[in-house]
């Protein structure tokens, strides 16, 4: 057993941990270093970690005595997480000065949160799962409350912390039930025990499974564990909200897929109905509740609840096409969300941030390029072909039909029609309403480049679907190789 091999397998994680600690020292001891330069260095660290992802551990390898796993699924999801974290941090470079939250700890905490997400995705043991999740959540609670003088930011942080701790408690309770039943925390050993048992699983085990599902559903903000999302998204500083909406969602979804499709695959009859229910409830609530929203950040919160519901359709299918659908959906969701938040961050009038839907009125006249980008993003979110959002939904619904979940697919399509209403309303406000005050110009290089990247990815996906779909296919296959 050599620790060197283990470190190579976890190279991006080790690098992120070390660079976060180095940045913490730099920020604490070099007073002349501004928060912005620390954040810039952090973006560089995330970029290097992305490069290391390709040199680090081989696929299908276990490390650290089976606590840590690398395969095509973790590689794809980690790439998404690093892209999401990197882009949202680039977007926040300007706003940390504008929003009076210029503290170097901001970038350090986001790096630690990213590290936690990578660890979640690579977890191969109930304990490493919990550790990664807690590292990510703890850093995010603090970042949500970063603007201490703002009442709403403190409220958001406190609410997120209390409800998040409750969810962690439920998750831990479920994990201990499962451990009590099987006497092991390793995913492989759990999978073997569930595969070998005859008859119905015991009640205690099912209670444990339900608690685990509830704890993880909170982290992806699926209905009925979504209540924190609108308040936290609205109260937290916009740059932080953008971060919360992008990478952590991908990581938590990856974790849910890993747990349910990995060790618990033989209990599929038990968890399928749970996933079908939370998927249905999230799609419907995400679509209907967003209609009444007048605040862009709350609207994005309900929109993300709805998107999580759509992605869960793929997980409910539980087949290879379904997992591929989830992976494609999360990839496209990531770019759509990052792009939309880039526009929300650009919504500043006379140096003050505005968040209302009506503030977008007449954007097509005052800033046509921004309006065009927003229109593309909203059309994609609504799922209108030929934009990427359509294909995201297409893949998950096809998988659901293949698995025989016709009702789920039909209700999903209906929910996406309802959701189209509020996405299209934003476009109507931008193009046909009387012009409101124009936004501050220029919006800055950072926002423009992020906006370019996300809109180009969404528009070009129909022509070059290769990179995302192939990565997702490989990711989905990694769950089914052993079964063949």
């Amino acid at each position, binding site marked *: 057993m050599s*620790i060197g091999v*283990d470190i190579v397998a*976890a190279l991006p994680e080790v690098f992120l*941990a070390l660079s976060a*600690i180095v940045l*913490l020292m730099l920020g604490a001891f070099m007073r002349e270093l501004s928060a912005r330069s620390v954040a810039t260095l952090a973006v560089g660290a995330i970029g290097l970690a992305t490069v290391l992802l390709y040199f680090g551990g081989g696929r299908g390898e276990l*490390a*650290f*005595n089976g*606590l*840590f796993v690398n395969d095509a699924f973790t590689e794809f999801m980690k790439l998404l997480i690093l892209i999401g974290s990197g882009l949202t941090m680039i977007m926040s470079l300007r706003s940390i000065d504008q929003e009076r939250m210029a*503290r170097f*700890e901001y970038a*350090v*905490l986001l790096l*630690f949160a990213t*590290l936690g997400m990578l*660890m979640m995705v690579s977890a191969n043991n109930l*304990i*490493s799962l919990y*550790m*990664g999740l*807690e*590292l990510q959540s*703890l*850093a995010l*609670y*603090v970042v949500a*409350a*970063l603007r*201490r003088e703002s009442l709403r930011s403190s409220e958001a*942080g406190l609410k997120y912390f209390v409800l998040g701790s409750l969810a962690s408690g439920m998750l831990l309770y479920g994990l201990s039930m499962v451990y*009590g*039943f*099987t*006497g*092991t925390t*390793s995913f492989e*050993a759990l999978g073997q*025990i569930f595969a*070998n*048992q005859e008859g119905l699983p*015991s*009640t*205690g085990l099912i*209670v444990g499974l339900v608690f685990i599902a509830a704890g993880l559903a909170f982290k992806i903000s699926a209905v009925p564990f979504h209540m924190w999302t609108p308040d936290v998204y609205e109260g937290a500083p916009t740059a932080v909200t953008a971060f919360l909406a992008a990478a952590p969602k991908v990581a938590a979804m990856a974790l849910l897929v890993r747990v349910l499709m990995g060790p618990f695959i033989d209990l599929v009859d038990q968890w399928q109905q749970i996933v079908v229910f939370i998927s249905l409830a999230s799609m419907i609530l995400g679509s209907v509740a967003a209609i009444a929203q007048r605040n862009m950040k709350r609207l994005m919160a309900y929109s993300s609840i709805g998107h999580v519901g759509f992605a869960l359709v793929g997980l409910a299918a539980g087949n290879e096409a379904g997992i591929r659908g989830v992976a494609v959906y999360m990839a496209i969701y990531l770019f759509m969300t990052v792009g939309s938040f880039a526009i929300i961050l650009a919504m500043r009038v006379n140096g003050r941030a505005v968040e209302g839907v009506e503030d977008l009125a007449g954007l097509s006249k005052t800033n046509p390029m921004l309006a065009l980008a927003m229109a593309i993003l909203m059309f994609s979110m609504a799922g209108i072909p030929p934009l990427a959002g359509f294909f995201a939904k297409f893949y998950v619904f096809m998988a659901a039909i293949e698995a025989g979940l016709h009702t789920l697919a039909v209700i999903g399509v209906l929910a996406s029609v309802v959701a189209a209403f509020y996405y299209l309303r934003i476009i109507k406000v931008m193009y046909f309403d009387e012009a409101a005050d124009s936004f501050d110009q220029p919006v800055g290089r950072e926002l423009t480049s992020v906006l370019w990247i996300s809109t180009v990815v969404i528009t070009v996906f129909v022509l070059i679907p290769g990179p995302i779909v192939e990565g997702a296919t490989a990711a989905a296959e990694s769950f089914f190789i052993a079964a063949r």
Partner: protein
Amino acid sequence: MIIHGLVFYLFAAIVVASAVMVISARNPVHSVLFLILAFFNAAGLFLLMGAEFLAMILVVVYVGAVAVLFLFVVMMLDVSLAEIQQGFLQYLPVGALVGLVLLIELIMALGAWTLAPGTLEGQGMPIPDPGQVTNTEALGNVIYGHYVYLFQTAGIILLVAMIGAIVLTLRQRPGVRRQSIARQVTRKPTDAVELKDMPSGGGV
């Protein structure tokens, strides 16, 4: 063997009795002192089981650091437990009902509890022979060897908690005069004291 049993019951009885006193004492300082007594006796129980490292760490960490910190907080904040306990009886019936329902549910869930085959054969870490390695060494092998990944992660989580506490609570107040050792040391008598020649007998 009889002495062993007697000592066990002595420690166990004191732990339970002092735990009851922790929640029923009227004076919070007494509560904390009873907590310390409970810790000491729990450490005694660990010693009886041959877990000497855990026993010592319990005394060092919990009695030496945590309980003393509690004591400081209780003395500084001057909390009155009587006020906290005021609504206690009022919520007792509802609380008892919820507890009862939960108990029945747990009995129903755990009554049908079956272990997976092979659970009791031990899939966890094998327990080393106490004659071969000491407690401390055995624990060290597990924590720093087998589970080093989790140990390091726990360290990072604690670091994040520390950063968070500082970020959210540390306020730099302007206008506070801080001690600067360098300035104190470089100060010369001529900067601070001015000698004036006064003509004698002239008055001020």
